[in-house]
């Protein structure tokens, strides 16, 4: 897989979509896969959601510098300890010596022992005041690793959902070499950094189901309808106009995509049993 630089994108006041795309060839066609980070800038403090992949280390540091200028990065929130979400922690902590790692930081002292003094637990429900906006840590309603959290920024009314809500918009041709463990939600070159509403077509339930079943194997065997009740309860409490997945396009049609996603999960479960 090679990595392609893509421009960062301004999403809302003080809210930026950073990171890059990995690209691979699937059935002879070039496809892309977002590995995204989101930067939230308050008047007092700044916070980065997910560190991106080490393949994008230089790109991410340059993007941060472009937005932050002389300001420091104060908080890094890896949603969970996997390479595309936390792999750039050392580079970020070295570059920003005052930055703290926040979230469910269990296990990080085993992976990054030299930074153990910079780990701060932020439990689901806790908040950080960034100045003029508040970042709230949320339970990860749909996740793989146990120490995963989601987040919400009330400034941009944006929810950050890690590996949740990563759809693909094109299902690879039937009979291709895709296997159970090919789990990337892909998009085509030229569709990088598009909002869901800017894609040529919204994903069908079938397309969403294809991505869903691959990204989270276990959801084939578990009915996740309850998780959606939890998500809807949070959305009722915290107004949300944008949803930022780590690997899919940013969602700006929240109601429509929730419906598609729930239907997709139900389809995956019905077929997995």
């Amino acid at each position: 897989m090679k990595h392609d630089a893509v421009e960062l994108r301004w999403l809302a006041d003080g809210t930026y979509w950073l990171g890059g795309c990995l690209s691979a060839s699937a059935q002879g066609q070039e496809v892309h896969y977002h590995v995204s980070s989101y930067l939230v800038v308050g008047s007092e403090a700044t916070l980065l959601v997910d560190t991106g992949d080490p393949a994008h280390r230089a790109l991410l540091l340059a993007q941060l510098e472009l937005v932050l200028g002389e300001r420091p990065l104060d908080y890094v929130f890896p949603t969970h300890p996997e390479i595309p979400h936390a792999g750039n922690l050392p580079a970020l902590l070295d570059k920003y010596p005052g930055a703290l790692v926040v979230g469910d930081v269990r296990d990080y002292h085993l992976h990054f022992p030299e930074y153990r003094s910079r780990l701060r637990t932020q439990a689901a429900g806790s908040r950080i005041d960034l100045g003029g906006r508040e970042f709230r840590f949320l339970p990860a309603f749909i996740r793989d690793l146990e120490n995963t959290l989601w987040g919400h920024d009330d400034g941009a009314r944006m929810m950050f959902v890690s590996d949740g809500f990563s759809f693909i918009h094109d299902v690879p041709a039937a009979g291709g070499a895709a296997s159970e463990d090919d789990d990337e939600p892909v998009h085509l070159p030229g569709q990088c950094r598009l909002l869901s509403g800017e894609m040529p077509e919204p994903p069908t339930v079938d397309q969403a189901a294809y991505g869903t079943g691959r990204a989270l194997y276990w959801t084939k065997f578990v009915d996740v309808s309850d998780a959606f009740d939890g998500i809807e309860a949070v959305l009722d409490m915290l107004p949300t106009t944008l949803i930022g997945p780590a690997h899919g396009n940013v969602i700006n049609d929240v109601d429509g995509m929730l419906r598609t996603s729930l239907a997709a999960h139900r389809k995956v479960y019905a077929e997995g049993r």
Partner: protein
Amino acid sequence: MSGLLSGRIYRLGGDIELDERVSWCPPGVRRTQAVNCYLIKGPSGSVVVDTGVRLHQEGIIEQLDRLLSPGEPLSIVLTRTEMECCLNIPAIEERFPVGSVWYTGGITVPRSKAESKRIAVDPGTSMRVEVLDGIVVELVSPLLRLLPTLWVFDPESGGLLTSDAFTHGGSAGPETREGLRKFRWFTGADTSPIARNIGDIFRDRDVRAVGPGYGTPFIGRDMCLEQAGELARAIEEMGIQ
């Protein structure tokens, strides 16, 4: 470092404090726990299965130094692409000649010069692969998983390296359920096929040692079969009835 199966498989790594700072720690438990990776010695090269946590990096490099002859070719096989499996690849690559890194799942792994060998084995099946000249292992894709996972079976010695399964060994009174904390999704699923798959894996192979990614190993045919039976039972009980 200790021999898992003498002369063929060695267990590397070290101990951690198992407490509330560790995501797989059962509630209320405080003790030390081994975190393991393994070395399979072949006639003209060796295979490292997982690379341990970075906390143990120095120790693991020293252990490899003692076991390997200078210039000995290496392959790395990852059972998962999680951090406790892959974060020491760069340090190992820097010191030893690593030809290839075998792994499954979509996530990239932190290797530099070694060839990346991404393979997919459908859950519930297995595949024999010569991961290094002269070393053929069977990569078993278990239904017992959270993320894409491979267990590594070495037919020559009967060693089965089980990644994040069989991880309850090492406490005074080992509770099989304690090793299943990571697989919380089992409580919402029909787990019978997963339990059956454990039985099949042990029925179809002559397993003489089980080497988990954390916790102490289980040695001897009878012990392995007994543990497999208990794990299958615990999985069955955890699921929706």
